């Protein structure tokens, strides 16, 4: 239609900006309440969201959206991932709480009227300050042909609501810098033309792809730094082949971004050969030291330059070009802490994923070997779109930064992350009964696991589902250390009796995570993160990530006791509630009770000591080859003396033992003392304690079942 503007007639169609194709709303949005205004200090003003307006026109400020309770957040990020390249239908965010607290969250999203909504399935960090379970997201812009000005997130659940408006910051989720250098005898190869080799999907666009573009499509704003430095061959020493240590040295010298700190930056080194020889095409060599995954290398003269003899001569060059390109993208993927496609579920010496992952050995991703899939290299590239798969994109874009960022989490630690195959019927939570998750040095950590029926119908579950530990995976990680997989001293096989959980009802049990068969998991001062996964039927349920702090020793006495305390013997005595034969451990626990009477560890020590001394026991011993049963009598006086820390302060005892274990020990000790005719002790143990949320525990499940059937 011809324009009638010269005649002063308003066009029938609104005038859109050119080029007029819809802009994605996905990307990074930011909110901050950090106002720097020395004189005077003005009150913060809520942002004015922009109403979407059909057609052209000036931007129209909309009504001020009421903001929920003012939390002590300083800066918040929102990563909205609903359109654009490889949308994952997720929203994730990071929020700073106070000066040092931080929470990361991730939500599934489905399109709803006016925006997107879904449930939060992952939290990490200071989760106690972030009780929400659902989000609804809307984007604000005058028309679909410009990037949004803002996005609004309504958080709900956990008994509260909260709304935040974030300003659009970038269409990328993170920023990363890449620096490409080469050894004197090699060249840097950053691109590949996807049409140069006929072995490709018919639908694959023919284009010149670059390494930075691959990672831009994964969601990163890639900048190249310095680069094209030529690393002298002297760095490889006499044989002109490179060892991992030599490459690490070269990285420290030649990488313009090198520093002993974690950052979104990677050094990529092109060289001729590794000292292993032609069979190694590339390696993420930086798996040593405190900052790992910052450097990677590709070897131009390795097997990647030698195609199968069946390749026609005319396709040798594009074949080599393709292998070089794929290798470089693959090795850089390791610096982002991506594991091989067939190793996603692997846990190696405590390093592994947070939640159970699925191995995908046939996946068409940069992180798979083309020659490893069924049908080999030809089959791989016939179906490969030069991308990462969805579970890898979820990790790259939305996992807590420290799992992905170079120099942060150690190689293979927290690699990959994926939403567990979960149903909406149950929710798993871990918590502690303490007012705050702060522990004294030497104080054992006992968690409460709570599985709640969040469906609208009764659900049958094994009454000992949590207690048996058979389907429980717990990971404990101290900041700066490798993650540890909890390995209990024993697993229990129970009769498969079931209980019915009504909607809203929970199954709960305790979990002593401080020590297990592989040693102590919580010992040194510092911050720890703990998360638990439960496998039930065809689904996995992943708990919140619980953050706790262990204090430093108060004095030298605690340090001296620690040497005998953090032992296998003491761990076993605490886990099994006593031993008559682990004398060294018992002596250490007695020392805790005697020398640290006001310490929370003394409460834990009191339990096994009292239970053991207050009972008659029998032990199988050998006199040469002759087996003998040795019986001991109860020592009520000694047991009574052990009880002092336990009965002195009920609130403190409940807080450190946890309500479930406190109830259990109180009942067991009462029975034990009653059995030896010490009724006064049983009266002292009938101690009132703070009310807690009701739940079926293994301790009361049998009684409850009897009551129901009576």
């Amino acid at each position, binding site marked *: 239609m011809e324009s009638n503007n010269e005649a002063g007639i308003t066009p029938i169609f609104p005038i859109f900006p050119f080029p007029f194709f819809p802009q994605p709303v996905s990307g990074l949005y930011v909110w901050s309440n950090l106002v720097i205004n020395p004189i005077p200090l003005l009150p913060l003003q809520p942002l004015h969201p922009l109403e979407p307006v059909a057609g052209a026109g000036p931007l129209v400020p909309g009504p001020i959206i009421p903001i929920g309770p003012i939390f002590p957040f300083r800066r918040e990020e929102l990563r909205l991932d609903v359109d654009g390249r490889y949308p994952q239908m997720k929203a994730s965010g990071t929020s700073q709480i106070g000066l040092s607290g931080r929470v990361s969250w991730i939500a599934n999203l489905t399109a709803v009227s006016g925006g997107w909504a879904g449930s939060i399935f992952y939290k990490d960090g200071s989760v106690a300050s972030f009780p929400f379970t659902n989000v609804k997201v809307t984007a604000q812009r005058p028309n679909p042909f410009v990037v949004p000005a803002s996005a609004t997130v309504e958080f709900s659940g956990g008994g509260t609501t909260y709304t935040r408006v974030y300003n659009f910051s970038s269409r990328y989720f993170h920023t990363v810098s890449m620096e490409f250098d080469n050894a004197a005898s090699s060249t840097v190869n950053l691109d590949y033309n996807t049409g140069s080799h006929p072995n490709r999907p018919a639908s694959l666009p023919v284009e010149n792809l670059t390494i930075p573009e691959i990672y831009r499509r994964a969601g990163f704003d890639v900048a190249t730094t310095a680069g094209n430095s030529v690393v002298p061959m002297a760095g490889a020493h006499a044989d002109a082949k490179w060892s991992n240590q030599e490459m690490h040295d070269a990285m420290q010298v030649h990488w313009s971004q090198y520093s002993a700190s974690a950052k979104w930056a990677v050094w990529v080194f092109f060289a001729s050969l590794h000292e292993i020889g*032609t*069979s*190694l095409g*590339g*390696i993420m060599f930086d798996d040593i030291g405190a900052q790992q995954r910052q450097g990677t290398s590709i070897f131009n003269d390795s097997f*990647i330059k030698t195609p199968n003899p069946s390749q026609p001569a005319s396709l040798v060059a594009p074949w080599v070009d393709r292998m070089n390109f794929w290798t470089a993208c693959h090795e850089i993927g390791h610096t982002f802490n991506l*594991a*091989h496609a067939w190793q996603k579920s692997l846990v190696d010496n405590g390093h592994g994923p947070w939640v159970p992952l699925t191995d995908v050995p046939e996946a068409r991703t940069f992180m798979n070997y083309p020659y490893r899939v069924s049908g080999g290299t030809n089959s791989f590239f016939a179906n490969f779109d030069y991308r990462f798969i969805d579970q890898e994109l979820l990790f790259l874009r939305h996992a807590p930064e420290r799992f992905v960022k170079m120099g942060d989490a150690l*190689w293979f630690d927290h690699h990959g992350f994926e939403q567990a195959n979960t149903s909406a019927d149950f929710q798993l939570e871990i918590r502690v009964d303490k007012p705050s998750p702060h522990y004294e040095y030497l104080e054992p950590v006992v968690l409460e696991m709570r599985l709640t029926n969040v469906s609208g119908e009764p659900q049958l579950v094994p009454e000992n589902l949590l207690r048996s530990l058979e389907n429980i995976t717990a990971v404990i990680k101290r900041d700066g250390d490798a993650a540890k997989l909890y390995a209990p001293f024993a697993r229990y096989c129970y009769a498969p009796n079931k209980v019915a959980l009504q909607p809203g009802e929970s199954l709960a049990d305790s979990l002593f995570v401080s020590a297990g068969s592989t040693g102590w998991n919580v010992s040194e001062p510092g911050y720890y993160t703990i998360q638990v996964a439960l496998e039930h039927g065809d689904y996995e349920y992943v708990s919140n990530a619980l953050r706790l702090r262990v204090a430093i020793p108060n004095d030298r006495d605690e340090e001296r006791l620690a040497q005998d305390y953090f032992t296998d013997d003491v761990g076993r005595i605490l886990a099994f509630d006593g031993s008559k034969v682990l004398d060294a451990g018992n002596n250490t626990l007695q020392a805790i009770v005697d020398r640290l009477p006001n310490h929370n560890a003394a409460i834990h020590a009191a339990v096994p000591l009292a239970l053991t001394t207050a009972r008659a026991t029998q032990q199988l011993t050998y006199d040469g080859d002759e087996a003998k049963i040795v019986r001991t009598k109860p020592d009520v006086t000694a047991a009574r003396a052990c009880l002092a820390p336990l009965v002195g302060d009920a609130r403190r005892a409940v807080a450190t033992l946890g309500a479930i274990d406190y109830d259990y020990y109180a009942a067991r000790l009462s029975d034990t003392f009653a059995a030896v005719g010490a009724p006064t002790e049983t009266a002292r143990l009938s101690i009132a304690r703070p009310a807690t949320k009701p739940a079926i525990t293994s301790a009361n499940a049998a009684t409850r079942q009897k009551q129901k059937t009576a």
Partner: protein
Amino acid sequence: MSRLSISLEEGFTGDAVVVSVNGAEVYRRDGVKTKLQIGLADQFETDVQDGPANIEVTLPTKQISGRTGVDAGGELYVGVSVEGNEIRFRHSSHTFGYV
């Protein structure tokens, strides 16, 4: 004589490994561990008479072992991986690639 190239690949977690060819020990090392980013723990070469040959791999401390037969002649590459309590083998006339 042929050259046999043996690669200890996935699943080695700091193990003692012994490799024998036709009953003769050709490799023994402690602490063999797979480098996860390349799927390779160690590589070595040994000469073998042309014709049928038996390769046996043992992890003494884990008390697991496995055997495979090959037809030695020209270049031959054998990859060895540990999966649970089993030793798995793969054969090729071309060099294996690791990245």
